């Protein structure tokens, strides 16, 4: 029954690859969503073999990630109004 853990590891690695290799903000957000879903799959697996409380944690994680997507898309819309693109390399107004 450990195949769920291997699957969630594979999905997490795919998400990490996306975060590292794409520069577009929306693509980075998509990759972060994939990583969050891999972690939720892990929670669901352990909850199905252990006790149902991990399912509640996965539920909270889903709600928080939905809120995060809404916030991030608002910020990207503002950035698009400012710079006409959402390239993450160009968010350097603070010269950091």
């Amino acid at each position, binding site marked *: 029954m450990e195949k*769920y853990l291997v699957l969630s590891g594979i999905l997490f690695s795919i998400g990490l690859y996306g975060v590292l290799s794409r520069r577009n903000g929306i693509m980075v957000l*998509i990759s972060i969503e994939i990583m969050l879903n891999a972690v939720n799959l892990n929670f669901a697996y352990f909850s199905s073999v252990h006790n149902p409380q991990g399912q509640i944690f996965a539920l909270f994680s889903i*709600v928080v990630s939905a809120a995060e997507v809404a916030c991030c*898309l608002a910020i990207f*819309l*503002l950035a*698009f109004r400012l710079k006409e693109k959402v390239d993450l390399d160009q968010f350097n107004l603070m010269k950091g």
Partner: protein
Amino acid sequence: MDIGFYIFSLIAIFSAIFAVSLKSIVRAVMSLGLFFFSVGCLYILLSQEFLGIVQILIYVGGVIILFLFLIMTTKIEPIKTNWTFLPAVVISCVLLFLIVWIFNKGKLKFTSFAPSSINEIGVLLMTKYLIPFEVVSLVLLVTLIGTICLLKKKD
């Protein structure tokens, strides 16, 4: 049960790869929707029907629509070349190797299969996890207000 797991996990892996690596953003978002759907089916195969239904409702019904709205209202071009291809592949392969190695090392042995019901989740949410439940609703309210304040046009 087993063949369902293999079918949906193959769909999940390939749609995740497409969602991460496609050039066109609309196609990537559609592939992400397929990914969310197959992960929801995997939850249902784990006999966690409530989590699967919530996954399909929130992600496929809400998050994908949000992405499509953003793409529709702006003109975001797909990005050019990704020059960090090789380091990203190397780092993610190393991470995958580490994860699988740790899971093999840990020798996880669970014998009891505990099917959970929606009834149990509802009781837990209303008794033991009442305060986190309320805090999560507060998070949603703050997100709503914050998003509206961010996007309000200043006249």
